[in-house]
């Protein structure tokens, strides 16, 4: 009798524990997840992250909270995620900056410390000039620069920024030289283009779309596979015979070492949120081409981007000596 009671008690305990453990394993996430954005609030990365966070809540059951960790051209936030516990509660959103900084700044974490999670969208660059210059297409643009190198004043991000990379791509492809003037951010850059301080720029489409419509600037080409929905009458570079495709990519990532099941949960939740049609529509309105993909696609995109960007940085003497491959 006593033995039976003890056995019953023991088995109850074991089952109870097993149940609790099982429940624990199934209940990721148990608390809010922190989504780290490396740029200040209001920018396109921040907006994209907030839109996704808004949609994810329902599937995960726990809120996704946006945390802006800014500074050092994005490296502060990258480091924050790299050093976080790989338990799935800290995720980040990265763009081209992460790649560039990892080669330029020895203090920025190398991309090996991260595990890409989900590929969200790409925001292609474009080339535009002020309308009062009388340049109507790429050929005229290139011709003007070949006739007198550096004759066009061009605005872009400081070295290592997105539009800087687009600009260098353009310069190398067409073998021309622009007079490059740096601006801290796309807003200032657009302002300078509108005020006439600079004559050409390589901004993402969404930033200058309405100025193009208003007639102040003329966009000569978009660096994407397909025409942008915001500027349907502007041809891509590819259409004009130049294989120039580049843009800022939006990839969610986590620190290396997150357990596989947690990663799976996150991956499917994020994918579901991104594939929400309302979100897709909003992204299109903002000029992003979205083709959501899971971990493998994200990894692939990252590798492709590295292959394109590293040579540019190397040629521009921007790679820190300790980071040369």
């Amino acid at each position, binding site marked *: 009798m006593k033995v039976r009671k003890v056995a019953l008690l023991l088995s109850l305990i074991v089952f109870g524990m097993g149940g609790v453990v099982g429940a624990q394993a199934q209940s990721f996430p148990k608390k809010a997840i*922190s989504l780290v954005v490396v740029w200040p609030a209001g920018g396109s990365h921040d907006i994209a992250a907030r839109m996704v966070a808004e949609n994810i809540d329902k599937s995960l059951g726990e809120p996704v909270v*946006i*945390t802006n960790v800014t500074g050092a051209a994005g490296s502060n936030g990258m480091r924050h995620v790299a050093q976080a516990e790989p338990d799935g509660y800290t995720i980040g959103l990265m763009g081209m900056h992460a790649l560039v900084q990892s080669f330029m700044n020895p203090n920025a974490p190398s991309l090996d410390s991260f595990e890409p999670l989900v590929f969200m969208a790409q925001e292609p660059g474009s080339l535009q000039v002020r309308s009062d210059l009388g340049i109507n297409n790429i050929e005229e643009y290139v011709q003007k620069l070949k006739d007198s190198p550096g004759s066009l004043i061009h605005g872009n991000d400081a070295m290592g920024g997105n539009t800087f990379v687009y600009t260098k791509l353009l310069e190398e492809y067409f073998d021309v030289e622009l007079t490059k003037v740096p601006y801290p951010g796309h807003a200032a850059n657009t302002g300078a283009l509108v005020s006439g301080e600079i004559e050409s720029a390589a901004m993402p489409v969404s930033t200058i779309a309405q100025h193009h419509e208003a007639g102040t600037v003329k966009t000569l080409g978009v660096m994407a596979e397909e025409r942008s929905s915001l500027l349907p009458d502007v041809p891509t570079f590819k259409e004009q015979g130049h294989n120039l495709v580049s843009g800022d990519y939006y990839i969610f990532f986590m620190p290396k070492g997150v357990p596989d099941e947690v990663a799976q949960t996150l991956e499917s939740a994020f994918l579901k949120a991104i594939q929400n049609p309302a979100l897709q529509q909003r992204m299109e309105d903002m000029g992003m081409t979205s083709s959501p993909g899971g971990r493998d696609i994200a990894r692939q995109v990252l590798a492709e981007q590295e292959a394109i960007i590293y040579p540019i940085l190397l040629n521009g003497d921007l790679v820190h000596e300790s980071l040369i491959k």
Partner: protein
Amino acid sequence: MALLAIAMTNRVISEPEVTSSDQAVQDILAGMFFLFWAALGGYGLVSNDQLLASQGSMLSAGPALIPGLTLAGLCVGGVLLLLKGAWSIRAGYSPDRPNWHQHGYAVAMVISLLALVGSMQAAGFLISTFLFCSGWLLTLSRRIAREGLRVIGIAISCAALISCVIYLVFVELVKVPLP
């Protein structure tokens, strides 16, 4: 450069005339203060090869132009202050013993804050803040009343209140991820 010279001259001319010996000491210390930072900054500039390389000629608009001018200004200003203080002192000077004790609490605050930050990472926000607040409230209450337990009780509950309110507002409302 000319603008800077004008500005400096202007400032010097419009300086108040008479200074007490206390103020003179303050001037000397202030001068040394600025010179210290000028030196630190100078070291930072000179030891930064990347910076020097991209500067090119001295006055071209490179990344070291404004820092250079600023440091120069700090040096000149620091020396001016030093001289002004020394000049006022030249006519006899008997310093009072500086009262170091008055800074006691201030220094204690700084040290305790550093400890607070350090312990926040280990013990979490609520606990370390609570300890910090209790510690300070008790220390500061000592002179107010000697009613013993009652004062201690009030201090502790206030400490708890402060910690909780700040936690609620910042973590729940603003969603700041305090450790």
